[in-house]
C-alpha cells in the first residue's frame, strides 16, 4: 500500500516532518566528494594560554626532549643498509644494547645461527639436486633457483630481527603455491621442448 503510493514520486519511509523538513522543501545537496582536508571554520580558535607557568613548562618540555635523546635508554631504530653485511659490525657493539632484555636483543650474536641454518639449507639443496637427477626435476629445479635467490637476499640484508626466518618460510610457502601454476609453464631450456606438447595454455601460432 505504501509502495504503490510512492510510484513515480519521491517519498520517504518515515514521517519527514518529524525530522524537520517540510514537504517539498529543498533538501541539502548530495555530497559527491570527500569533505575538504582543511575545512573553513566559522569561528577562530581561542588563543593559547600564556603566563609564567606555561612558559616554564614549555622550556622544560624542550629541555626534556633534548635530555631524553641523550639518555642510554633512547635506542634508535637501526638503519637498514642495503649493502653487504660489514665484518666490523660483529665487533662494534654499543653498550646501549645492555639495556635491552636478553630476549629482545638484536640478533648480531645470532648471526652464526643464521649461517648454520643457511648451511642446512645448502645441504637440503644438494640432496634435492641429487633427487632431481633421478626423478622429475622441474619442481625441485624451481625450488632450487628460488631458494638460491632468497638465500642471497637474506645474506645481503642486515635485518637483525626474526623477520628473515619468517621471510624464508613465507618464501617457501609462496614457492609451493607458485609451483601449482608456474610448474608446467616455465622450466629449464632442456625440458622445454618435451613438455610443450602437454601444455595447451600457451598460444600456438
Amino acid at each position, binding site marked *: 500500500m505504501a509502495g504503490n503510493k510512492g510510484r513515480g514520486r519521491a517519498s*520517504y519511509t518515515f514521517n519527514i516532518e518529524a525530522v*524537520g523538513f517540510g514537504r517539498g522543501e529543498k533538501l541539502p545537496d548530495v555530497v559527491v566528494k570527500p569533505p575538504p582536508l582543511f575545512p573553513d571554520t566559522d569561528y577562530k580558535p*581561542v588563543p593559547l594560554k600564556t603566563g609564567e607557568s606555561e612558559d616554564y*613548562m614549555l622550556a622544560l618540555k624542550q629541555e626534556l626532549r633534548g635530555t631524553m635523546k641523550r639518555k642510554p635508554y633512547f635506542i634508535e631504530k637501526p638503519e637498514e643498509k642495503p649493502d653487504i653485511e660489514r665484518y666490523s659490525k660483529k665487533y662494534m657493539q654499543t653498550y646501549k644494547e645492555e639495556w635491552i632484555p636478553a630476549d629482545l636483543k638484536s640478533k648480531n650474536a645470532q648471526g652464526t645461527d643464521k649461517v648454520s641454518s643457511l648451511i642446512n639449507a645448502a645441504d637440503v639443496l644438494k640432496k634435492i639436486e641429487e633427487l632431481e637427477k633421478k626423478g622429475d626435476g622441474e619442481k625441485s629445479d624451481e625450488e632450487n633457483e628460488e631458494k638460491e635467490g632468497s638465500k642471497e637476499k637474506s645474506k645481503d640484508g642486515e635485518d637483525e630481527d626474526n623477520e628473515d626466518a619468517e621471510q624464508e618460510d613465507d618464501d617457501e610457502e609462496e614457492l609451493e603455491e607458485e609451483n601449482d601454476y608456474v610448474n608446467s609453464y616455465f622450466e629449464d631450456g632442456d625440458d622445454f621442448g618435451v613438455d610443450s606438447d602437454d601444455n595447451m595454455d600457451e598460444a600456438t601460432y
Partner: protein
Amino acid sequence: MYQVHKRGVVEYEAHCSRVLRMLRYPRYIYTTKALYGDTGELIIEELLLNGKMTMSAVVKKVADRLTETVEDGKTMDYAEVSNTFMQLADTRFVQRCPMVHTPENSDTGPPPPAPNLVINEKDMYLVPKLSLIGKGKRRRSSDEDAAGEPKAKRPKHPTDNKEPIPDDGIYWQANLDRFHQHFRDQAIVSAVANRMDQTSSEIVRAMLRMSEVTTSSDAPFTQPLSSNEIFRSLPVGYNISKQVLDQYLTLLADDPLEFVGKSGDSGGGMYVINFCKALASLATATLESVIQERFGSRCARIFRLVLQKKHLEQKQVEDFAMIPAKEAKDMLYKMLSENFISLQEIPKTPDHAPSRTFYLYTVNILSAARMLLHRCYKSVTNLIERRQFETKENKRLLEKSQRVEAIIASVQATGAEEAQLQEIEEMITAPERQQLETLKRNVNKLDASEIQVDETIFLLESYIESTMKRQ
C-alpha cells in the same frame, strides 16, 4: 610491561597509556617545583627520566646538579636532598617499585624465565634508613658523568664511591596516580572558585587536603568530614566564623552541580566531596565549551537545552531555544554529524515503522566525552607531526645556527674582540635569521598546544575512568 606466557616464553607488551603520560612530564615536574621547590623538582625529573632509581643514586645526582647552579664555593648537602625525598615519600609522590620475590625454598628447579615482581602495600612508602653523608660535587670537565651505567659496571665507578650501595635493590619511582589526584583536586578547587567565590574554594581546598591520605585515589567520594573538623583545619588567617562556614557549606551542598554533598548531621553537619559528579560536571563543561567555540553560542544553547531536558523532539528544540526552525535544524544536524548529539528512536508500534516512530535528540555524555578524547589524541598526533615536519624542513638552517653558536662560544672563551664576534654573527644572513625566528615561534606554539591539549585529555580520561569504575 612483561608477563610470563603459559608456555614459558616471556611476553613483552608496550603500555600505550603509560607512553601517553610522557606528554604530561612537564606538568608533573612543574607541580613538584611549586610544592617542594627546586630540590623536589629535580628529584622528580630524575625519577621520570630514568624510570626507577635507588634513593642514594637520586640524592647524589640531584645534589650534583644543584651544586652546579649554586654559586662557586657553596655545595649542596646530601641531607637536605634526603629530607625532601622523605617528604615526597610521606605525601606519596614517590613510591617503591615492586621487588623480586624470593620464595622460601629457592632451590626447587630453575628460576622462572621472568621474575615475579611483588610489593607489599605497607612497604610502598617506607624510606630505608640511610645515613647519606656527603656534599654535592661540582662537575669538572675531567669527570665524565657516568649517568645510567648498568648495575654490572657499578664497582668500576670512576669517582669516590668504592663501597657497595647500602640500599641496593630498593628502587623508587614517581607515583603518577598521586599527581593525578593532585591535578584533579586543583581542577575542582578552581572550578568552585570560578563558580562561587574565593572563600568557598578555600573551604573545598581544606576539605580535600584533609582527605588526601585517607581516601584512595579512585574512591567516588571522600570520607565524611564534620563541619567542626573543617573549621579547625581552615588555613590560619582565614577569619570566618563558624556560622559563616556553615552557611557556605550549606550553599555548596545545595548547588545543582553537587560537588559537595551532605551526608549526615552529626558534628555540626557531615559533608563529602563527590568526585564522580565533580568530574562529570567538568567533562560536561569541556564539551559545552568546545561546542561554543566551534559552532557558536546559539548551538551551545541548544546543546545545554538538550542536556538539561534529556530528550527533545525537533519541534520542542525550536520552541524552547527560541531559535527559528531553519537555523535550529541546521545546528542540530551539524552537531549530530560530529556525534556530539545523538538520536534516540522510540517506536510507537512494535514493527518500528519509521513513519510511526519518535525520533528524539539526546546527549550521552560518556560517549561524547570518548569521542572528544579521541579527537584530542588525533590533535596531539597532528601537532607532533607538524612540529617534526617543520624541524626537518629547516634542519640545514638549524645546524648552521648551532655551528655558529659553537664558534662564538669558543671564540669568546679564548678572548675575542667585538669586531670578530660581529663578523661571525654575520655568517647568518638577515632573512635566515628571520626564518629561524619564525621557525622558533611556530615550534613553540605547537609545543605549548600539546601541553594544553594534554590538560583536556587529563580531564576527559579522569571522567571516563571514574564513570567506568562506578559501573
